[in-house]
């Protein structure tokens, strides 16, 4: 029963009733973990991976004495935590991310929650994680760390007030690339509402510096399906003008534009070996976390 209650918090609607981000992150991960009874990733990061011969300086607590008893040689147990995964969560907090359809999380809220949950999960696996929040520029960041207490700093940064500026994603990705020198896993959470070419350029630059990139493309379900019926005044964000229109007559054309945008972005990611995941803010978080673990497993191998 406790597991089932925990899993309910994978639903964004349910989770939006809880305001504290770190609690959200914990609930998501616990709910997620409770559903992984048969998962090959269960405890994967702290389990034994292989032996290597002891060399001076190694921690003697990791000598495998059973192997010594059989072979009279010292072997050190090598665990997966020793792969030393470095992860940066990059969260877009531009004005467009503040959109959310009625009754649902905003894209930013969803992105924050997702970022916190991923951070919690990464720390729970004893990997190092840092975070950056940006709009036109990098607004806040927290250095990378694998300490369990690091989550508090992460959440504080992730939950910072969003900016009112438009995104300049291509430019800001370039700056991020300059700041992250070591090869890392970059988890980008954004709606990518910027010039497609510039975004593609920024992503390729990250890849060019040897980073692994997972892109969570966050879209509201209304942005995907355009379900409006009545005459609507669409109020532009990020300096776009307002538009009064009959949604019925525009639906076909708008959805065509959105589909073309997503398809172009997917193609760019595929060409740059970036793992792309379209995230509908109405979807449960476990879908997203599963996608992340799949990606991480691929990175370790």
């Amino acid at each position, binding site marked *: 029963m406790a597991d089932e209650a925990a899993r309910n918090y994978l639903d964004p609607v349910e989770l939006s009733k809880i305001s504290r981000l770190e609690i959200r992150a914990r609930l998501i991960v616990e709910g997620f973990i409770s559903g992984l009874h048969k998962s090959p990733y269960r405890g994967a990061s702290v389990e034994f991976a292989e032996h290597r011969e002891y060399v001076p300086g190694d921690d003697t607590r990791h000598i495998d004495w059973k192997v010594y008893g059989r072979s009279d040689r010292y072997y050190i147990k090598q665990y997966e935590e020793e792969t030393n995964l470095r992860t940066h969560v990059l969260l877009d907090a531009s004005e467009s991310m503040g959109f959310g359809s009625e009754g649902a999380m905003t894209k930013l809220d969803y992105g924050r929650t997702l970022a916190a949950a991923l951070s919690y999960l990464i720390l729970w696996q004893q990997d190092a994680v840092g975070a950056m929040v940006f709009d036109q520029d990098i607004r806040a960041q927290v250095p990378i760390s694998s300490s369990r207490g690091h989550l508090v700093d992460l959440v504080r940064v992730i939950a910072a007030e969003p900016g009112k500026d438009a995104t300049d994603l291509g430019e800001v990705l370039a700056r991020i690339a300059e700041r992250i020198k070591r090869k890392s896993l970059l988890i980008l959470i954004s709606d990518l509402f910027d010039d497609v070419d510039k975004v593609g350029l920024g992503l390729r630059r990250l890849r060019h510096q040897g980073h692994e990139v997972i892109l969570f493309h966050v879209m509201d379900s209304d942005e995907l399906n355009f379900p409006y019926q009545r005459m609507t005044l669409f*109020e532009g964000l990020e300096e776009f003008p307002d538009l009064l229109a009959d949604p019925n007559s525009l639906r076909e054309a708008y959805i065509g534009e959105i589909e073309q945008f997503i398809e172009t972005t997917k193609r760019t990611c595929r060409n740059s070996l970036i793992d792309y995941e379209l995230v509908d803010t109405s979807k449960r978080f476990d879908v997203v976390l599963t996608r992340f673990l799949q990606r991480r497993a691929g990175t370790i191998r």
Partner: protein
Amino acid sequence: MTWLNPGVLGFLALGSIPIIIYLINRQRFQRVPWAAMEFLLRAMRKHRRRLRLENLLLLLIRTAAVLLFVLAMAQPSLESGSIPVIGGSGRSDLFLIDRSYSMALVDTGRSTLRIATDSARERVKAFSKGDRVGLIFGGGFPETMTPTPEVVTEGGAPLVLEQLEQAEIVYEPLEVAPLLSVAADWAQAGSARDSGWNLHVYSDLQRRDWLTAEGAVDPAIREALNRLEQSGARLSLHPVGPTRPRNITVTSVFCANPLLAIDLPTTFQMTIENAGKETLAGLEAELWIDDEVQGSRRISVEAGGSTIVSFPHVFRSVGIARVRAVVRSDDLEVDNERYAVFEVRDAIEVLVADGSYDPKDGSSEADWLEAALGGDPVTTTGIRLSPYRINVIPTDRLAAEPLERYRVLVFVDVPELSSADVERIEGFLRDGGGVLFFPGERFRAADYRLRSWRGGDGWFPYEPDITVIDRERRTFYHWQIEVTEHPALHYLSETPDAGIGDVAVHGFIRPLSTEGSTVLMTLDDPARTPALLERSFGSGSTIAMTTGAGRRWSNFPISPAYVVFLHEALPYLATRDETSRNLAIGEPFRRVVPAEEYAPRVLLVRPTGDGVPVVLEERADHRSFDLRIDGQTLPGAYELRFGGAAEEDGRSDWFAVNADPREGDLTGIDPGELSESYPALKLAETRREIEVADDYGSGDLWIPLFWTVLGLLIAESALARFFGTRRARRG
């Protein structure tokens, strides 16, 4: 274009509703902060033109649907090429209603006339304030019911509506030309508005009304239509009644004997015509005399044919006989009956004055004549073979004979007449008697010139000159009938077998003058010498031959034509002064009432049973009275009751009135043929109206309008769905 509910047209403003809704929708919108505005703007830019067109198309369809729905509710019907007039802005309509008796046909529970007037009333009720309406009834002479156009007020057109409601059949045929001519006069006097008069003719469109008996174009109708065309009027024909009615008509009831007398066998013949398209069998034909049925026959009449049914009869009493021929057949009752009135006499008294009278000879000219007329007495069976009672006398007894006893005087070879005789003969003629004259061997031309011709003032029809006679019979001439329609000669002219043209004339009296007389026959000699002449004198008439009645003058006495001529001429002379008792609708009745038959009170009793007093007017001769009755409008037998000073003496006279039997031919004319016959007949509309429920049928616009509205609504739904949801389906 006419509108049954013109008031509904005010709701045309509802056509703005879709536009208003569109504008309101643009004002009543929800606000949504929108992040993906770039894509929305791009979509708008790319599809702006198509979106505008789609919106405009939907808006037009919705507006058109509302407008057409309102128009349909106003129930328009197409009747002319005129510009539609809405809200009583100047319609001018003249209704011409056929009231002829063919419109009395009852086929669907109502008469054709009622169907026509109900339909016209419905049309008038649909008019609006300010419209103008006129009404003329056809049938006989047209009757203008609205001397000036009635202007429709808020209360409608009560005068026209009431007159339509009270319209009654007249028992006369429709006279199309006078009706159209009166309508043209009326329309011109009524000065229509700019749109001109709309003429509505409600009729069963009988073929005989529009074409002559030979099927030719009627020039008078053509002229009237030309006048209407020039006035700018538009004619709408509304054929009413069934398209192929069956109808039997009793076209005549005829007595074979021109003169009726008691104990004389006679035969009544009724002619029954079937103008329909199918043979009618099992019909019952009856003959009634004085309210008693005398005979009944089962008959059948072929389509387009006729049947003559004979009923023999012998009258046993003197008086006026009322005859009614009836066929029990169909729903047009008025032509299923026909009436006739005949006078039955004791006998027709004929006085023959014979100049060569010899009671023992038996071969004189008078003997020939008596034998030809069949003046036999009543047989042992109580039957007589001739209506004539003939009295042959020598010329010298003429002075002693009371001429007033006789209906006809016949002179045969009378050599001369005294002045007293001439005076009595002329008195006889003045009172309406008839004289038949044959000259002979003893004929003294000088005497007749002097006393009877008197320079053209006497009773004798010609001024006699010399006698031309070929006793060797080597030269002869034939007669030629000059007046073929004369009652005494008509049958002979129509029947060559009777041999009037074969008579060989060897001798004749050459007339010096025939002034004031009518030459009925001539000889085929080069001079075309008159052979038979008639001269009217007073109320009577004389028919005189220039050839004697003996064999020495011609072979006429042994010719079949001799008997025929006598039996044609004598009834004519005997009844020439008599007023006809068998009249057509509208024909006046005139009769001279002798002083001895005078009655202080005379009552005319109509077939309906109501009585009207009739006044006798004394004539100038102070010996008789004029009885004048204007033309009657109802078929049937009319009785004249002569009442005494104290009480009615029961003496009656009768006359019969019948409608024109041709009206019973209900064969219709095709409107296409009408237009072909009369190019000026520019029909705005032709529509057959059988039932009022069917009144607004084929020619009406509102039914297709409703269908159009339905089609537009379906199209709007389909287009809106197609425009608005095709992407949703893909999504």
